[in-house]
């Protein structure tokens, strides 16, 4: 069968007349239906994986009791606190290394060495240093978010077109106005890319950090659910993790659309 025939064939396929936009939803819904059916007939036991309808019920219970929102806020707070510290430290280091040779020599070598360490490998050390309270969790997240911000912003600053800097200098821009008008706006796309990586990193680290003896938060809920083999609650928490990650990504993308409105790709759309 030629390619053209194959395309024709697939065009004739939707005899059900499903609108094009909804076609992508068909297979996920079918999978959900199979999952539900498997649970109902007992192929998938509840202690392995709860049925979708059971998960929905659990969501409703956990939301209406306030258990889910409260713990979600705790996790969100940890992620944001760690992210804020990581972004601040990473930006400060990147600006110091990006703007001066002395700063580069002082900052870049140690940071490049440290970034090769998987930040989660420091968990035991952080527990020894900071105990098992909030501090090691936030410190881990801060550490994991510092490096993507540093690497991208530093590259962005160094990658600003030297011709633009030269032109701005020829028009009398110096020092802080040169940095504010030329260097930082030029590095902004790289910074936002770093922010995306940092957000992804903060989520990943949050999941692990919350396994450290937490008494609140999504990780605490998951640990509790594990102890009682409540697969429905575990699935609920996984869904919340996914939704939070999607939301964070959407926020950064909205930020990019606003801050990078000058880019040709955004002007067209």
């Amino acid at each position: 069968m030629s390619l053209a025939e194959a395309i024709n064939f697939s065009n004739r396929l939707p005899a059900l007349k499903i609108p094009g936009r909804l076609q992508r939803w068909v297979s996920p819904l079918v999978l959900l239906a199979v999952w539900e059916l498997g649970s109902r007939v007992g192929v998938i036991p509840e202690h392995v994986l709860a049925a979708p309808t059971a998960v929905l019920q659990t969501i409703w219970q956990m939301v209406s009791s306030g258990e889910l929102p409260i713990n979600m806020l705790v996790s969100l707070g940890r992620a944001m606190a760690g992210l804020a510290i990581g972004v601040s430290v990473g930006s400060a280091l990147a600006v110091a290394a990006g703007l001066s040779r002395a700063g580069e020599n002082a900052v870049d070598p140690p940071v490049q060495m440290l970034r090769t360490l998987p930040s989660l490998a420091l968990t035991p050390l952080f527990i020894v240093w900071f105990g098992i309270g909030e501090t090691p969790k936030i410190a881990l997240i801060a550490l994991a978010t510092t490096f993507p911000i540093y690497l991208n912003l530093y590259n962005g600053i160094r990658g600003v077109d030297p011709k633009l800097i030269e032109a701005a200098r020829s028009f009398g821009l110096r020092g802080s106005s040169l940095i504010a008008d030329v260097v930082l706006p030029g590095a902004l796309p790289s910074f936002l890319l770093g922010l995306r990586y940092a957000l992804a990193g903060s989520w990943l680290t949050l999941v692990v950090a919350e396994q450290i003896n937490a008494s609140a938060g999504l990780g605490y809920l998951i640990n509790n659910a594990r102890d009682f083999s409540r697969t429905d609650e575990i699935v609920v928490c996984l869904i919340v993790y996914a939704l939070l990650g999607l939301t964070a990504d959407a926020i950064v993308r909205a930020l990019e659309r606003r801050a990078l409105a000058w880019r040709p790709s955004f002007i067209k759309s």
Partner: protein
Amino acid sequence: MVQASIHPFNPAPAAEPESSPTRQSAVQIRNFSRVFGETAVLRDLDLEIGAGEFVALLGRSGSGKTTLLRTLAGLDQADAESVRTPSSRAVVFQDARLLPWKRVWRNVALGLSGADARGRAEAALKEVGLGHRLDVWPSTLSGGEAQRAALARALVREPRLLLLDEPFAAVDALTRLRMHDLVLSLWRAHAPAVLLVTHDVDEAITLADRVLVLDSGRIAAEEVIDLPRPRDGGPAFQAVRRRLLRRLGLDLPPPAGGEGELVAYPTGEVL
């Protein structure tokens, strides 16, 4: 040929009382050399540009044109003894070098201090025919429009020395002709001294009061262009063109009509 030290130039419009360098000259370079490693890019160079004078600088790649322009622009360090330039100077580069994250008028207003930077930027943009493009992003401008914006950005500073670094090399031929007219009218209106660095012999003859040929870091030839503007490509123009091309190492045969055609026109008006 003549060293570019003493030359006649058109009576300059009354220069504002300014201290540097002298009343009637905008640029003075005396015995200036610039050495990168082993090679001297500029050697014992003398150059004077009168206030309000339009000078074009021709030269092959590597002749030191760009180095000279960068020196005059203050982008390369030079000692104040041998290079004297007015403090108000502005450059238009070959690529417009607009900051893509600033709207067009903000690019023009870049580094302007004082009140009403927007008003001044607007006026300059209207003057170059971009009054309708004030608030767009630079990436939406055509090549010609971007160069107009770059011209506006240079002129809004009311420079006494305007440095043009092959500003029309990247625009299409038709746009280039329009830009020539624009540059001439802006030059007449604002009367800065202009140094135009170019590869294009015709462009140099069309625009400048005086054309210099730079070769191996020295000014190898000078032609004062005494033709009335606008300059068409008449025989006198062609004669200058041929002489300059020969200086640049390109020997053209005389036109098909032979030199006899030239005799009918006075060609003695050029050096």
